[in-house]
């Protein structure tokens, strides 16, 4: 388990760094809470004043929709891809990849564990404050408790797999970043795409009815939307094995693709000097 110690080391370092920049940490917290609140307000206004009752047609009522928004805010550091590990990104852009290769670890899995460790650290710091504030808000803006204990468990496990899947997605983004000539553009587009399709902008169930089947099956739903459905109760815990299987399948596909792509691009590495 040689990867465990560096992971813990990174975790500890991230915790310490986060605490040191205390003002920034508080600011980040309040920002997250505010964002969650703004989205909740938007959802509530639509549900309350909307002409058509989408609560029935989408299978998601107002409480669930608002809870979803808060859950996204809590899981923010675990899942979305825009929080690419800055260090690694800067390293690629400065051409230090060559130096990383000198380390006796397979590059892909080294990066994988690094991303995972740093994300998990930040996630742990954010959960207690955001969750407690969200639960204390007045109706209908608050985060509702899970549908059942089993639902919570199912959601947690599913989220964990989704977490690993998202690290795999980031892996592919790293490889893309190594194609230096393309610059930021493709990465931004990919990030936006995955964010949208993972349901972090809007619960997938509120998207048009005709797209639901596709949205369910596409890989990014497995990142965030599907796991959260367990918490809300829109997916029963009994559906867990099926969903988990699909998540794992996507994860394997992404990990394999990422690893293969990286091997190929390492072979034709262009070092950007300066």
């Amino acid at each position: 388990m040689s990867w465990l110690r560096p992971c813990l080391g990174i975790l500890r370092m991230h915790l310490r760094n986060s605490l040191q920049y205390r003002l920034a940490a508080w600011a980040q917290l309040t920002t997250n809470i505010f964002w969650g609140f703004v989205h909740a307000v938007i959802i509530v206004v639509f549900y309350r004043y909307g002409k058509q009752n989408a609560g029935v047609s989408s299978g998601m009522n107002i409480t669930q929709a608002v809870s979803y928004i808060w859950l996204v805010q809590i899981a923010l550091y675990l899942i979305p891809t825009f929080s690419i590990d800055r260090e690694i990104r800067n390293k690629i852009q400065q051409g230090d990849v060559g130096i990383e290769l000198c380390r006796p670890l397979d590059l892909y899995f080294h990066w994988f564990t690094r991303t995972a460790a740093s994300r998990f650290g930040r996630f742990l710091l954010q959960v207690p404050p955001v969750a407690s504030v969200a639960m204390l808000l007045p109706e209908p803006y608050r985060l509702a408790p899970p549908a059942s204990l089993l639902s919570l468990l199912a959601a947690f496990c599913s989220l964990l797999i989704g977490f690993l899947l998202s690290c795999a997605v980031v892996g592919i983004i790293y490889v893309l970043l190594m194609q230096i000539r393309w610059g930021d553009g493709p990465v931004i587009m990919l990030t936006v795409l995955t964010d949208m399709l993972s349901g972090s902008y809007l619960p997938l169930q509120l998207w048009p009815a005709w797209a639901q089947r596709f949205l369910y099956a596409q890989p990014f739903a497995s990142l965030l939307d599907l796991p959260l459905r367990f918490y809300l109760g829109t997916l029963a815990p009994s559906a867990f094995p099926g969903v988990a299987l699909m998540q794992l399948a996507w994860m394997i596909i992404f990990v394999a693709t990422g690893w293969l792509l990286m091997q190929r691009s390492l072979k034709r590495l262009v070092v950007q000097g300066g």
Partner: protein
Amino acid sequence: MSLIVLNEICKTFKTAERPPGLFGAMRGAFMRQSKEVKALDRISFSIEEGELVGYIGPNGAGKSTTVKVMSGILVPDSGSCQVMGRVPWQQRVAHVAQIGVVFGQRSQLWWDVPVLDSFELLRDIYRISASDYQKRLCDLTDILDIGGLLATPVRQLSLGQRMRCELVASLLHNPRLLFLDEPTIGLDAVSKLALRDFLKEINQKHGVTMILTTHDMADIETLCQRVMVIGHGRLLYDGLLDGLKRQYTPERRIRAKLAGSCSLTELPGAERLEMLENEIVVYFRPEQVQAQEIIARLAAACPLQDLVVENQSVEEMIARMYREMSL
């Protein structure tokens, strides 16, 4: 009326302390602990127009702080300061238009664009008239030989080339006063010599007053007659370099190569002797005995092949001075 007058300038900084370790970080997240550092302690001096003054001291002594006060970007806690008749920080824009500052480690040129573009932007910032600008640019480009570099982006220049462009940039607006903070740091020998020659020339020919902070003693020796030493925020010496040398290198030495064997334990007039392989080193005090007397006595006492009269290097002198001043 002196160009620069500082009187009893004091400045104290508060630095935040963060205890190490995880618990320390948690404590630091809720309470702030700070430490007070006295950066400047009643600094007083005056500088006339046209002087070239060296300003030395160990790291953290207060050199950059003094320069910041004189250039108007730092307000001292107490004391008075007048530069060219103005209080620098009270009339920042007017003051800054007449001074130039060169930082050895930070560039004032824009990184991604050709050097000439930077110069033109500076021309606009300093509101230099077109004719003045052209003339000065030509002169400076000529002297510092940067004609071939004007079209190159700054990030592609070597350190020596960049330093030369920095100097041009800082002189375009014809400042009366120039502050140089470690200008020769990291430069190769040729560049250093060229830079020193250049600084000497503009000081002597154009009367630009200069204050040079540096760790390179050769800079000081070549350029400055007057030297100020600062340590722990206090001005410890302000006078001629020679005086400093006399105070801290009272000894000179004669290194003589022996043509044959010689056993000498003492020599009249010499402080002490050192016997090496086939060398003899004689230490003496120049104010007590002349070098030629020692040489004559030595030559009479031993067969000599070659000899050299040395001063203790300025570096050694400075190190000794810091030790004695407990810096």
